[in-house]
């Protein structure tokens, strides 16, 4: 199935570029390291064979759309398409500049979980077949079921099919029913304040403030990020626990009502920190208080963008 997708993406990209319908096509290519597919921008129709698709396309391509003025072809699964919608709603790109090649998605593989499963031995190759995948390295070869190795966000995803597209590469896949998307958040909500603090302090303890999570996030497109500003300096640049907590808190707030839980932040973290715990709480609040999930429609302004007399305001005395 994955090879089929790849073939179709290549064919579509070639046609779009040859017909002059787009100036650039944005997709994924195989990474130099196994399980790490890279974004690729293609302008020459002869180079479309670089394009690739499998369950290691976890980076969010929407990062490459911000502020573009040319016509762009782009592949988009569920979450990426929701980020494209968010980009359009936030005036970062225009819908008529885009040709969206929709990809029904059954989730991305959690490379860390696979790495743990093979006892941290170096994986040199990964091949998918049906609902499983095989990893190979020096002196080992192991096969796993994909559903047991999904990224955390993919396991609880309820928007696997693109919401906005010009053409679909295949028939839509079945959406997951009955997932408890916010069970982890609820568990924390049940804790005492002291325990909550302990949980989040330990969560970000290892953070080295490399800002990979910010860089991978398609929502983070400010010309100068607050963490990089020095006049005024909003947050200390040290790895002091308070500075680190401030960074994570503010990063999350900047994503409030905008995050599609694409999981790129967690995927790229070199320390394996689960910073989705911050954004997920805000996603849950958006859903509970505003019945809002980001990027599902071009026709509605996000809740933090508009005032309604019946907006939730119980927190104001």
């Amino acid at each position, binding site marked *: 199935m994955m090879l089929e997708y790849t073939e179709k993406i290549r064919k579509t990209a070639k046609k779009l570029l040859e017909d002059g319908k787009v100036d650039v096509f944005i997709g994924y290519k195989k990474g130099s390291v196994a399980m790490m597919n890279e974004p690729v921008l293609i302008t020459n129709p002869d180079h479309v064979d670089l394009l690739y698709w499998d369950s290691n396309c976890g980076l969010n391509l929407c990062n490459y759309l911000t502020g573009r003025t040319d016509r762009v072809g782009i592949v988009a699964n569920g979450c990426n398409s929701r980020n494209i919608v968010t980009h359009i709603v936030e005036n970062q790109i225009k819908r008529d500049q885009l040709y969206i090649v929709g990809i029904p998605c059954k989730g991305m593989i959690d490379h860390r979980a696979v790495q743990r499963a093979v006892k941290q031995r170096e994986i040199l190759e990964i091949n998918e077949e049906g609902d499983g995948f095989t990893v190979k390295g020096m002196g080992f070869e192991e096969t796993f079921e994909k559903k047991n190795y999904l990224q955390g966000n993919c396991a609880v995803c309820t928007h696997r099919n693109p919401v906005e597209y010009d053409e679909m590469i295949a028939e839509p896949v079945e959406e997951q029913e009955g997932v408890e998307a916010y069970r982890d958040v609820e568990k924390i909500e049940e804790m005492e*304040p002291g325990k*909550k*603090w302990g949980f989040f302090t330990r969560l970000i303890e290892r953070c080295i403030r490399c800002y990979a999570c910010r860089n991978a996030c398609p929502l983070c497109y400010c010309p100068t990020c607050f963490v990089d500003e020095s006049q005024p300096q909003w947050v200390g640049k040290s790895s002091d626990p308070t500075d680190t907590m401030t960074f994570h808190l503010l990063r*999350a707030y900047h994503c409030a009502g905008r995050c599609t839980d694409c999981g790129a932040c967690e995927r790229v973290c070199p320390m394996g920190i689960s910073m989705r715990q911050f954004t997920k709480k805000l996603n849950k*609040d958006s859903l509970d208080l505003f019945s809002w999930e980001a990027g599902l429609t071009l026709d509605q302004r996000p809740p933090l963008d508009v005032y309604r007399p019946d907006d939730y305001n119980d927190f104001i*005395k």
Partner: protein
Amino acid sequence: MKGLFEHIGIEPGRLQFSWISSAEATKFVEVARAVAKEVKALGPAGHLIKRRAEVA
């Protein structure tokens, strides 16, 4: 705002919001008193405080 702060373990009551018009002096006093009372009961803040480096 309040939701995530309390979610990470800032005590409920530590962070409060109110909307008071410049014409509502009485409300201002009431709210300020109530907030001060609640925060005093919680004691000194322990989280999100950056201390100066202790130099021996």
